[in-house]
């Protein structure tokens, strides 16, 4: 099985044997280099990787890999993976949505539909865990839509305001 992994802007080609489950070491190819790895899944999302005597305890959390105390955001390019490439929707031009970065409640809407806003101007305030957070406009433009009202509960990624 071949998987492309993108970490910190660099793409790596990783070839894994079909059956890693049989005990002992396995030959894996990373960018063409042979790595003899003893990989054990300790629990779902928790992997112990033993390579040349070094032991790495790796945990998966969403799209982030953690090894020791270091974290590595990554993307996978594999048709069988649940995670595709990162979305290209947030392009630089075209309408841009202000989305909720966390679950919360809408406290105040600071703009009106049709209003012109500057980049980094505050557009909406949402509250969670006793903290109010003012969300800013990602670019200058005109408010084309306000998708929520004060007191609304919103989830992560919920579209709040759209700027054209």
């Amino acid at each position, binding site marked *: 099985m071949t998987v492309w992994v993108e970490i910190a802007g*660099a793409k790596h080609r990783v070839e*894994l044997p079909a059956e890693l489950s049989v005990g002992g070491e396995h030959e894996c190819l990373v960018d063409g280099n042979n790595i003899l790895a003893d990989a054990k899944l300790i629990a779902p999302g928790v992997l112990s990787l033993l390579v040349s005597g070094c032991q790495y305890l790796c945990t998966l959390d969403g799209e982030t*890999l953690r090894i020791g105390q270091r974290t590595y955001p990554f993307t996978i390019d594999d048709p*069988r993976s649940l995670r595709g490439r990162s979305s290209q929707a947030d392009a630089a031009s075209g309408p841009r949505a202000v989305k909720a970065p*966390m679950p919360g409640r809408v406290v105040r809407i600071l703009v009106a539909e049709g209003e012109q806003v500057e980049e980094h101007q505050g557009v909406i305030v949402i509250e969670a865990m006793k*903290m109010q*957070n003012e969300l800013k406009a990602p670019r200058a433009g005109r408010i084309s839509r306000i998708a929520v009202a004060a007191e609304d509960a919103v989830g992560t990624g919920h579209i709040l305001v759209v700027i054209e």
Partner: protein
Amino acid sequence: MLRGDRAGKIASVMKKVLIANRGEIALRIIRACREMGLATVAVYSDVDRMAPHVLAADEAVRLGPAPAAESYLRGDRIIAAARILEADAIHPGYGFLSENAAFADACLAAELNFIGPPGSAMRALGSKTLARQAADKAQMPRVPGTVTGLASVEEALHVAEEIGYPVMLKAAAGGGGKGMRAVTSATDLPSAFAAASSEAERSFGSSEVYLEKLIEQPRHIEIQIIADQHGNCIYLGERECSVQRRHQKVIEEAPSAIVDEDLRRRMGEAAVRLALSAGYVNAGTVEFLVDAQRNFYFLEMNTRLQVEHPVTEMVTGLDLVHLQMSVAMGQPLGLTQSDVALRGHAIECRIYAEDPDNNFFPSPGLITRLLEPSGPGIRLDSGVYAGFTVPLDYDPMLAKLVAYAPTRAAAIDRMLRALDEYTIGGIRTNIALFRRILLDEGFRTAAIDTGYLERLLVQQQASESVSPPPEIVALAAAILSSASVTASVPAATPATRWTSTARREGLRA
């Protein structure tokens, strides 16, 4: 100093305690009750039915919907629950109703033992301006400035001239940094006064502000005291809480690296004087600012158990919640000042559900995976478990991680080891931030003040020396991702329809 016959009668029958709180502190108090043979009643809001404090209690009562105003702040419902379930005492924890004098009075009126100071002491020491007057009476050094609210901007200009710039405007009813403005010259004062007043009005319903000399790069150091109903009051050493972000404590430690025996005694005796002057009973904390010359200035008094009380427990060997209960039962302290000795060093990290990489946004939600540190010198007071959904309605503290060791350096290194063992999956936390602080030379040399962390956060983060090679990272990512898609067998412990429903309910809330 006894609180009268009635209180005495109440105190004599303490068998069941209602804990009017949630999260780690409710669990911590339930544990203390169990250790003392006391039955426990938990209270909960709709989103907390499956919270750890409910699961740990003998009995549990629903208070209402998620918002605190409709649940944990409903003193009437809490007192009603205590009466129905025949609890004879209420422990308020910290936050919520813990510093509400009217609630303390209402408990007494309902013949419930409020485990905390009497309402009168709370009133005398709870308001910042009243507390400053009490501090003056107790001959306690405090930051030069007004002790009452400023009537006008003219008065503010006059006082500022007298004590000298820079000065600080503060909301009288305030806390948490709201309604505060630093002012460096007379020209800036009028606009700062207007802004602070209106922010205070918006935040606390009172526009009253007062003015103090600004202490530059102060350390925040506080004294833990405990007083019984028989007039005994002692101090249990200090805690240093200078590592703060937006006036919220992030790391606390005991003892402070800059406090010696003499300074500890002088601060401790001042704190005890203040407490005794107000008829204080039970545990309390007197907060001070300490300047570079080790002058200390009274800041305010917290009339309750503090979040950071465990570091004091680690270095004194005492249990503050046990002491709170004994005192509330009318027992004498059983300790004199000379019985209190500090040994070793303890550090506490407040583990928050927030994302340091993204403006510290809160991060409530389902905890999908949890690996907790333990072993020598480690204490974890946690309020979550794997499978628990952290509600968005309350403060973001998930747990307190405490490390104890013979020296400050060893405690720091032990904390780093424990942080390495700590994994909380599914939500973002500030665990990695602590690693950064604890490796920073400034923190390690105790060169800290209340502005330390904000300065650190704007610095470029140094990359760590040891790090796995990129091909290992790629390999691990590839294997873990493949594993998650090739899942073909049912789990060893299959989740049920119930679990899934429960999780959906939690997420929907």
